[in-house]
């Protein structure tokens, strides 16, 4: 439909404003004003009930010297690095395998199967992995014992050395990611299917196969989906602390603590709402910086095409 330009005093403009109003009222109440409130209250010592006491940059200063925050930041860095690598490599491998089967040969069946882990409710996935890692009855230890590796078995989520890696390794064999950034394989497959067939014919003439074909022909076409999946995985891993909360509560000790969970604890555990807001603002700045970096890289990838 064509967009009609109308004046502000026209009945159409009035009707449009009325139609936009409900959506905006909800956003104003639960998006815009909380965002501003979070930034404002990060400057306060606030328990969420009283109006609080203005403390300037104190919360941020405290953040810089907070050992739990330092440990959480290191943890989230490791966690993000591992998950991004897994989310880029394994779905790409599967997409390559499926694509080169050629059309019709079971492609859609594989696609559907790899979608299944995304259809299972997130909580069921998390709790199944909590079971898999279970020290006594868990599938992982049971398989290890079966393979004669009893020495390797352990309480995966309860160990100081293993908790963070266990959480990072969730979703083996990682073709389908966990939660919302899990569909990389579908994006890569769509990217591969968008490459003109003549280019593949040229590859055959040149005798380029395997790795050479991948690097010289396919990878440039996949740079945008790869970039998108990387960004979504980083944003999602940085923000969503529910997997950590459900699997380890950040423990043992603070071995798997992440900033999001620390924010939650500060607010709903210790009533340090102002401090929690400061953590939120810090995390939001990282996210916005990443999103801006992404748009720069994205437009460069577009130009390179």
């Amino acid at each position, binding site marked *: *439909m*064509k*967009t009609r*330009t*109308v004046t502000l005093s*026209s009945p159409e*403009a009035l009707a*449009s*404003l009325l*139609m*936009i109003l*409900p*959506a*905006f009222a*909800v*956003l104003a*109440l*639960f*998006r815009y*004003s*909380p*965002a501003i*409130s979070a930034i404002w*209250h990060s400057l306060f010592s606030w328990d969420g009930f009283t109006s609080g006491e203005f403390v300037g940059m104190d919360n941020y200063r405290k953040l810089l010297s907070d050992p739990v925050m330092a440990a959480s930041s290191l943890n989230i860095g490791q966690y993000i690095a591992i998950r991004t690598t897994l989310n880029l490599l394994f779905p790409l491998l*599967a997409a390559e*395998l499926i694509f*080169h*089967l*050629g059309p019709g040969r*079971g492609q859609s069946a594989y696609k559907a199967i*790899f979608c*299944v*882990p995304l*259809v*299972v*409710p*997130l*909580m*069921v996935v998390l*709790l*199944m*992995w909590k*079971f898999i890692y279970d020290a006594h009855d868990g*599938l992982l230890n049971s398989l290890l014992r079966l393979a004669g590796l009893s020495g390797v078995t352990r309480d995966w989520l309860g160990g100081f050395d293993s908790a963070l890696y266990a959480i990072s390794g969730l979703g083996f*064999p990682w073709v*389908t990611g966990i*939660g919302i*950034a899990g*569909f990389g394989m*579908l*994006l890569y497959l769509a990217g591969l299917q968008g490459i003109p067939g003549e280019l593949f014919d040229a590859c055959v003439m040149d005798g380029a196969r395997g790795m050479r074909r991948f690097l010289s022909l396919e990878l440039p076409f996949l740079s945008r989906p790869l970039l998108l999946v990387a960004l*979504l995985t980083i944003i*999602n891993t940085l*923000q969503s602390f*529910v997997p950590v909360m459900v699997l380890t509560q950040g423990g043992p000790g603070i071995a798997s603590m992440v900033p999001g969970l620390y924010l939650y604890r500060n607010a709903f555990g210790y009533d340090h*709402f102002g401090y929690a807001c400061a953590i*939120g603002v810090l995390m*939001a700045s990282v*996210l*916005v910086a990443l999103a801006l970096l992404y748009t720069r890289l994205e437009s460069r990838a577009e130009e390179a095409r």
Partner: protein
Amino acid sequence: MSASPARRGAAHGALVVLAFMSLVPFLFMLLTSFKSNEQFYHSYYAFALPPQWGNYVDAWAQIGGYFFNSITVTLVSVAISLLFASIAAYAFARYRFPGSGALYAGVLLVLLIPGTLTLIPAFVILRDLGLIGTHRALYAVYIADSEVLGIIILKTFFGSVPEELMEAAALDGAGELQTIRHIVTPLARPALLTVAIMTTLSCWNDYLWPLIVLPDTRKWTISLGLVAFRDRYAGMSAWGPLFAGFVIASIPLFILFFAFMRQFVSGLTSGAVKA
């Protein structure tokens, strides 16, 4: 592009292994959901007879209430969010007036506001509005969460409705509302369905908001209920009934997936774009 049969065979082999391993947690869940405790320890990997259908009865007694709460919360949130998003999207797609561009930019801006930033003040606002302990608190945050992408997706879609169809309807004497009802809405069905599925997924999967705003266990949604159920049953290693509960909790999304596979996948992918 044609691979040799040997290469194709190897690819199939690798994919079958990857597919099987991806499904292992869920196959194990289904298998174990029919086992008693004794069968679980005796035949950990194998199917055990007789199947314990009673596990499902037991699980339903534990989570049935949460299941229906989630159905209600999801349906109400999807309906209102779809309504708000579609009327706003229609206005944005159809009319341009001074300030409309800025308003739309305001919608896009919300994508840059992360949920962790708004979590605490949004909770305080909900509390001050007296909504803690009610499902209305969830409707509010879920609508705010999903209507933004709804507006963006639907605006794009409405914009692509052929102008000729709208003109033809106008020539036939149809008013704007009739055109919306008979031309735009039927054409927009796939897009509406995509947005609805995207919202359903995030409502059904959310754990954090119910945890924060619902102190009363009778109001709990399925994600929250499953965690409590797990803590009780894993404590006594009653994996059979527990996994039966997991299977029950998975059924609604699976029905949607098989009924609307294409829109489900697009709902899945578009839902990821928000921060």
